[in-house]
C-alpha cells in the first residue's frame, strides 16, 4: 500500500500483511448476504392439512476497524536505515432475532397469528409507569 523509496519503507504485501480492505470487503459481503427473505421466514412445517410458517424479525450489525503504521529508528540520521511497521485490526458483530408471527394455512383459510412477548411488554409498562409517577411527583413538588 504505502511505498516510500527514500525511507526504504516496504508496503503491506512485502511485509506479509493481507490486503485489509479486501478482507473487510469479503467479511462485509458475507454479512450483507444475511439480508434476505430466508432469514425472516422459517422452514414451513406441514402437518396433516395444516401448514405453519414461522416468521421473525432479524437485526444484525457489524463493525470493523484497522490501522497500520511505519516508523524509522529514533535518532537515526541515515535515511536508508531499515524501518519497522505494524498493523492491527478488529471487528465485532451481533445478530438479534425475535419471533413476530406465525402464518397458519389450513383448509379453512390462511391466518396470521401474532406472537406477543409479555415479558417485554410488562417491562416497558412498568418502566413507563415509574417514569410517569416520577413526573407527576415532580410536578406536585413544583407547585
Amino acid at each position, binding site marked *: 500500500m504505502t511505498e516510500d523509496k527514500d525511507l526504504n519503507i516496504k508496503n503491506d504485501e512485502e511485509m506479509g500483511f493481507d490486503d485489509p480492505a479486501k478482507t473487510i470487503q469479503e467479511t462485509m459481503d458475507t454479512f450483507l448476504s444475511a439480508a434476505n427473505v430466508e432469514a425472516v421466514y422459517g422452514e414451513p412445517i406441514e402437518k396433516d392439512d395444516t401448514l405453519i410458517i414461522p416468521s421473525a424479525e432479524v437485526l444484525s450489525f457489524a463493525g470493523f476497524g484497522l490501522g497500520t503504521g511505519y516508523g524509522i529508528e529514533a535518532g537515526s540520521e541515515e535515511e536508508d536505515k531499515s524501518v519497522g511497521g505494524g498493523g492491527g485490526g478488529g471487528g465485532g458483530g451481533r445478530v438479534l432475532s425475535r419471533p413476530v408471527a406465525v402464518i397458519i394455512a389450513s383448509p379453512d383459510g390462511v391466518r396470521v397469528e*401474532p406472537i406477543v412477548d409479555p415479558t417485554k411488554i410488562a417491562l416497558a409498562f412498568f418502566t413507563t409507569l415509574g417514569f410517569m409517577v416520577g413526573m407527576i411527583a415532580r410536578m406536585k413538588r413544583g407547585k
Partner: protein
Amino acid sequence: MSEFMNVEIQAGESVSIGEHTVTPFAQSVQIRFPGMGGFIWNRPVSVLVQNKDGEEEVLPIIDVTRQALFGFIGLGLFMFALTWILKRISRKT
C-alpha cells in the same frame, strides 16, 4: 437505492397447500458504512394468499410487541412534554 442505504421488499418462495398458495414478503433495510461495518434490519411485512379461483388477499403481519413498546414510549414522551409545559405555565403565573 444507494451504496450507503438500501431498502427493499423481497418475496419469499411460494408454498401451496390445499386450495391456497402462500407467498411471504419481507422488508430489508441495509445501512452500510464503507470500510467500517453495517447494519441490517429484516422484518416480515405481509403474506399474499392466492386461491385456486384466482382470488388474491394480502394479510399484513402486525408486530404486536413492537406496537405495544412504541405505545409506551409515546406515552412516556407525551407525559414528559406535558409535565414540561405545565411547569413552564405554572412558573409564569
